[in-house]
C-alpha cells in the first residue's frame, strides 16, 4: 500500500473529506519518512513536529465540521527564504542564523488561515543564489535519486523533500530557474507562475524584478490546486497583479487538441546531454500524438539572456543585501565604529557565492560602468520579451528542456562559476520576460536520473500552461520514484 506521504494532495484532500484518513495521520506519515531518510537527504533546516501535529489536529476538527478549504490538513514545506512568524528563517546564510521573523509571508499566511500544516523550513543555496544547493551555509542537500548528486538549486531542499515523500508539496522561489531546475533534477513538478501572480510580501528579496514564488508538487493537478490558494492581489506587495482569485484546476483536463506547440530551436544545441534531448523530443512527440500542432520556433536572443541575467540579478542583489548590516537582525561582528562593524559583519556572514554576486553587482552599478553593464542588460531584456512576443504570435506554448543536464555530482562545478551559471540557460528567459513556465518529469536518462521538460506560456496564461502540462503528464504516465523511497516499501 502506498504510504500516505507518497500520495498526491488531490488524493489526500478527497480522503480527508471522505473520512478515510486524518491530517494527524498524514502529518505523522511525513515525519516518519523524514525520520527514515533525512540523515541522507538533508532537505530540512528546521523541522517542527509538535507544532505541525497541533496544526493537524486543528485541521481535522475543521474538516469534520465541514466546509474546510481543500488545502486544509495537507502538510507543506517552505523554502527558508520565506518568512514564517515565530519560526527561524535563515536563507541558508550564517548572517541570518537565529533570525525569527515577526510576520508571515503572504502565501504561508493564506495557507495557514486555510488550515495547512507546516512541516518545516527547507535548505537552499544562500539567499537563493545557486543551482546546486552547495552554497548553503548549512551543508548541501542530496538528490533522493542518487545521494552523490546535487538536487539542483536554489530551492533544492523543497524539491528533494517532495521527491522523497518528506512533504506532500512545498513552496520555493524562482529568480532564474530556482524552482524549475531543481524540480527537473529531482523528478517532480515545478511551477513558476507569471511574475506578480503570487505576492512576495515576506519573501526575503534576492533580485526584485525577477523573484517569483513557485510550487513543488508530485503532479500537475496538485500544482494547480496549490496555486489557487496562494495566487492573487495582495495590498502588501505593490508588484502583485490585480488578478481575481480563481480555481486553476478548472479545465485542466480539457485536452490539447489543436494546441499550437513551438519547440525552441536554441534549446537543443551544444551542451545539452543526449539523454535530455531524446527524452524531451519524446515528450514533443507525445504532444503531437495528443492532437497538438507542433512546429519549430526560435528565441534568437537566448544566448544573451544568461549574460543579461548575470548582470541584472547581482546588481539587484547587491542593493537588496545592503540591509544585512548587523544592526536590526542577524549576525554582528564588533568593530571600532559602525562602518567597521558592518564591513566585518558582512565579511564574516556571507558565503563565497553571495560575496561574488554582491561584488559583481556593486561593480556593474558603480559610477562609469552602469550604462555599459546594467543599462545594456536591461535592453537585452526588451529583446528577450520581443522574442517571446514573436514566438507566441505563432504558438500557444513553447517547449524546451528545463535544464541542459540531469543531476551532476556534488562538488563537480563548485570551482567554476560560469559552468554553474549555464545550468539556468533555458530557465532564465522566463524570468527576464515574466512568463509562466513549468517543469514536469519527461523520463529518466541512461543513468536513471530524471529529465525535465519545460513548457512556457504567455503572461497570465496559467490556464493553457497547466492544461498542456497535465495532458503531457497523463500521456507520459511516469511511474518511477527514487530507490530511496521504493526500498522503504520493500
Amino acid at each position, binding site marked *: 500500500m502506498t504510504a500516505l506521504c507518497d500520495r498526491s494532495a488531490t488524493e489526500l484532500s478527497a480522503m480527508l473529506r471522505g473520512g478515510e484518513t486524518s491530517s494527524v495521520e498524514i502529518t505523522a506519515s511525513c515525519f516518519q519518512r523524514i525520520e527514515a531518510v533525512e540523515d541522507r537527504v538533508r532537505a530540512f533546516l528546521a523541522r517542527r513536529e509538535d507544532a505541525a501535529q497541533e496544526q493537524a489536529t486543528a485541521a481535522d476538527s475543521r474538516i469534520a465540521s465541514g466546509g474546510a478549504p481543500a488545502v486544509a490538513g495537507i502538510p507543506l514545506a517552505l523554502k527558508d527564504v520565506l518568512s514564517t512568524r515565530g519560526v527561524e528563517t535563515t536563507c541558508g546564510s550564517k548572517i541570518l542564523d537565529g533570525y525569527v521573523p*515577526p510576520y508571515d509571508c503572504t502565501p504561508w499566511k493564506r495557507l495557514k488561515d486555510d488550515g495547512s500544516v507546516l512541516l518545516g523550513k527547507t535548505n537552499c543555496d544562500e539567499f537563493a543564489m545557486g543551482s546546486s544547493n552547495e552554497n548553503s551555509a548549512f551543508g548541501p542537500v542530496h538528490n533522493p535519486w542518487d545521494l552523490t548528486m546535487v538536487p539542483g538549486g536554489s530551492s533544492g531542499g523543497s524539491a528533494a523533500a517532495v521527491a522523497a515523500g518528506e512533504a506532500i508539496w512545498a513552496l520555493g522561489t524562482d529568480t532564474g530557474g530556482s524552482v524549475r531546475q531543481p524540480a527537473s533534477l529531482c523528478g517532480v513538478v515545478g511551477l513558476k507562475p507569471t511574475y506578480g501572480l503570487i505576492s512576495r510580501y515576506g519573501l526575503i528579496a534576492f533580485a526584485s524584478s525577477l523573484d517569483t514564488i513557485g510550487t513543488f508538487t508530485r503532479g500537475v493537478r496538485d500544482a494547480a490546486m496549490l496555486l489557487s490558494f496562494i495566487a492573487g492581489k495582495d495590498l502588501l506587495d505593490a508588484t502583485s497583479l490585480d488578478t481575481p482569485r480563481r480555481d486553476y484546476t478548472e479545465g485542466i483536463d480539457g485536452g490539447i487538441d489543436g494546441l499550437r506547440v513551438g519547440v525552441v530551436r536554441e534549446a537543443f544545441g551544444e551542451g545539452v546531454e543526449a539523454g535530455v534531448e531524446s527524452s524531451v523530443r519524446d515528450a514533443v512527440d507525445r504532444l503531437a500524438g495528443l492532437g497538438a500542432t507542433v512546429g519549430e520556433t526560435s528565441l534568437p536572443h537566448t544566448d544573451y539572456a544568461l549574460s543579461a541575467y*548575470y*548582470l541584472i540579478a547581482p546588481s539587484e542583489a547587491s542593493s537588496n543585501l545592503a540591509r544585512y*548590516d548587523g544592526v536590526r537582525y542577524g549576525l554582528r561582528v564588533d568593530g571600532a565604529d559602525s562602518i567597521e*562593524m558592518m564591513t566585518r559583519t558582512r565579511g564574516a556572514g556571507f558565503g563565497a557565492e553571495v560575496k561574488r554576486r554582491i561584488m559583481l553587482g*556593486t561593480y556593474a552599478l558603480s559610477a562609469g560602468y552602469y550604462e555599459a553593464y546594467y543599462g*545594456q542588460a536591461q*535592453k537585452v*531584456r526588451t529583446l528577450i520579451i520581443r522574442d517571446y512576443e514573436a514566438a507566441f504570435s505563432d504558438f500557444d506554448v513553447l517547449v524546451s528542456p528545463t535544464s541542459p543536464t540531469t543531476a551532476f555530482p556534488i562538488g563537480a562545478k563548485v570551482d567554476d562559476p560560469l559552468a554553474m551559471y549555464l545550468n539556468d540557460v533555458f530557465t532564465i528567459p522566463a524570468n527576464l520576460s515574466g512568463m509562466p513556465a513549468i517543469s514536469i518529469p519527461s523520463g529518466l536518462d541512461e543513468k536513471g536520473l530524471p529529465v525535465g521538460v519545460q513548457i512556457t506560456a504567455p503572461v497570465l496564461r496559467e490556464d493553457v500552461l497547466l492544461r498542456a502540462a497535465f495532458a503531457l503528464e497523463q500521456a507520459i504516465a511516469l511511474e518511477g520514484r527514487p530507490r530511496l523511497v521504493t526500498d522503504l516499501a520493500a
Partner: protein
Amino acid sequence: MPVEIDIDHVARLARLELSDEEKERLRAQLAVILDNAAKVGEVATEDVPPTAYAIPRSNVLRPDELTPSLPVEEVLANAPEVEDDRFKVPRIVEVE
C-alpha cells in the same frame, strides 16, 4: 581585453571585508564573468529601450488605513544589541 577591477574600491562600496585570498580569487573570477557578460553590448543597440520590469506597474495605491505595526518586542528580539526599545549601534561620528 580582460576587465581590470579595483577590488578594494568595489569592496569598500559594498562594505564587505575580504581576505587577500578572497580578493585574488574574485579578481580572476569577476574578470571572466564580466568578459562573458559584456556580450550584452553586441545586441543592445541605441534604438532598443530598456526594460526594468517585465510587467510594468505604476502608481500602485492602497487605502490609507491604520493597521497594527509589528510587535516591538518580537522585532527587537532579533537585534544584536538593544537599548530602551531602540537598536544600538557602535559610534557613528568621531567625538573630539
